[in-house]
């Protein structure tokens, strides 16, 4: 059961700013509620009021400019999944959105809510890291942008101040000749592990840029720039051969923690297994082949 609360529904950012200033820690920002309402039902957090941001104008758009793509905070997973703009510019993100939780959560849950809640067991933050995501935050004092990698501080912890709201996330779509893959694994509702990998191939057929992010296994998702650098210059065939050493290097560097999804050691081992598979998937796609391997309790996007 939910304890009583007041519900405010501002329609502009200044109104929202006033409400945040007035209620501060007594208020929770409410969008889809897919995470917040669970916490409230369990009594894990207690607030006097919810501030619904869904009616604030301008937060629900998906737009592109200057080569970047911006997804508004109140855009639903379902809209990401079906957005023609994202299907064209960031198709892997749209593909991952189609596998977030279940169809009911996708209809209601929002991009901003997901990222701001910073549940470690989330696909969105991991895949967004591979798009060099930056968060836009708004407060009465002004706007700021912060890389997603710095925004997520730990499990359920972000750099958002109490007087701020997330207004959008900005992604850098991959250049031409980029192939990617996202592999998720888990037997529970939330993913136990997510691996995002993308490589940009030069006209000569060598990796010119690589992006590798691993999430869910530790307190926050992260990129592995050392491993990315090792892939530079590889051909598709080289990549396929390098799957094991790249996976080993990632497994060595990853921070894992014990939780209900498994022990830290288990997650390190699963990181090794799934990075190897992700490299194999991307190597196949870089060579122009379909990757049709399927794995138990896993999704390949």
């Amino acid at each position, binding site marked *: 059961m*939910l304890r009583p609360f007041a*519900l405010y*529904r501002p329609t502009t950012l200044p109104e929202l700013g006033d409400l945040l200033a007035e209620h501060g820690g007594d208020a929770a920002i409410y969008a889809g509620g897919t995470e917040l309402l669970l916490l409230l039902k369990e009594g894990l957090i207690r607030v006097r009021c919810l501030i619904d941001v869904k009616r604030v104008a301008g937060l629900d758009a998906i737009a592109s400019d200057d080569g970047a793509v911006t997804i508004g905070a109140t855009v639903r997973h379902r809209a990401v999944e079906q957005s023609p703009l994202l299907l064209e510019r960031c198709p892997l993100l749209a593909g991952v959105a189609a596998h977030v939780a279940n169809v009911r959560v996708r209809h209601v849950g929002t991009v901003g809510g997901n990222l701001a809640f910073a549940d470690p067991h989330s696909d969105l933050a991991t895949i967004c890291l591979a798009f060099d995501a930056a968060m836009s935050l708004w407060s009465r004092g002004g706007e700021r942008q912060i890389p997603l990698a710095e925004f997520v501080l730990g499990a359920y912890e972000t750099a958002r101040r109490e007087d701020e709201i997330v207004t959008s996330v900005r992604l850098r779509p991959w250049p031409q000749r980029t192939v990617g893959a996202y592999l998720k694994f888990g037997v529970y509702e939330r993913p136990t592990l997510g691996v995002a990998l993308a490589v940009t191939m030069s006209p000569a057929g060598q990796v010119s840029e690589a992006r590798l992010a691993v999430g869910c296994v530790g307190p926050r998702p992260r990129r592995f720039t050392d491993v990315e650098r090792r892939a530079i210059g590889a051909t598709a065939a080289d990549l396929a051969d390098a799957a094991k050493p790249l996976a080993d290097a990632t497994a060595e560097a990853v921070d894992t923690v014990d939780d209900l999804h498994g022990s830290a050691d288990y997650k390190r081992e699963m990181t090794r297994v799934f990075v190897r598979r992700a490299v194999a998937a991307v190597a196949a796609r870089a060579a122009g082949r379909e990757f049709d391997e399927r794995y138990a309790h896993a999704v390949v996007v």
Partner: protein
Amino acid sequence: MSDTHTPSSCSLACTVNGRAVALEVPAHALLIDVLRERLDLKGAKRSCDMQVCGACTVLVDGAPVSSCTYLAVEAEGAEILTVEGLSHGDTLDPLQEAFIEHGAVQCGFCTSGMLMSARALLAEDPVPTRERVAHHLRGNLCRCTGYSKVIDAIVACGRRPEARA
């Protein structure tokens, strides 16, 4: 201006199974409680209470939602469809007929959620593949049937022209 609700007085005007409904509900009222306790529609079941099992699935403007984790006030102005609204009098929805024909029901606890979820899918994709049905039903748990017969029923229903509502 902000549309400010206080805990004791939220007006909710919506359509439930084709019938106009106007109620006063608290801001913290969950849709499942309004449906079950205020409108006496017991089809949506509270089970996991955390958006995992799908037993509480209802459609809000055609979209499946977990009524257990959905504020009733969000349904303001919306058309809500529950399992009670699927049939027309004694005439069952083709989806319900398909569930019966294929034996897609055992204990029945998940069935109303399964039906609502499937109804939303068929509106979007009238002739879904088995893979599409399985993907769509990922959030509807059944502990009796093993899913095969449920999927059979939905796929078969999609192939009937009269079912493509």
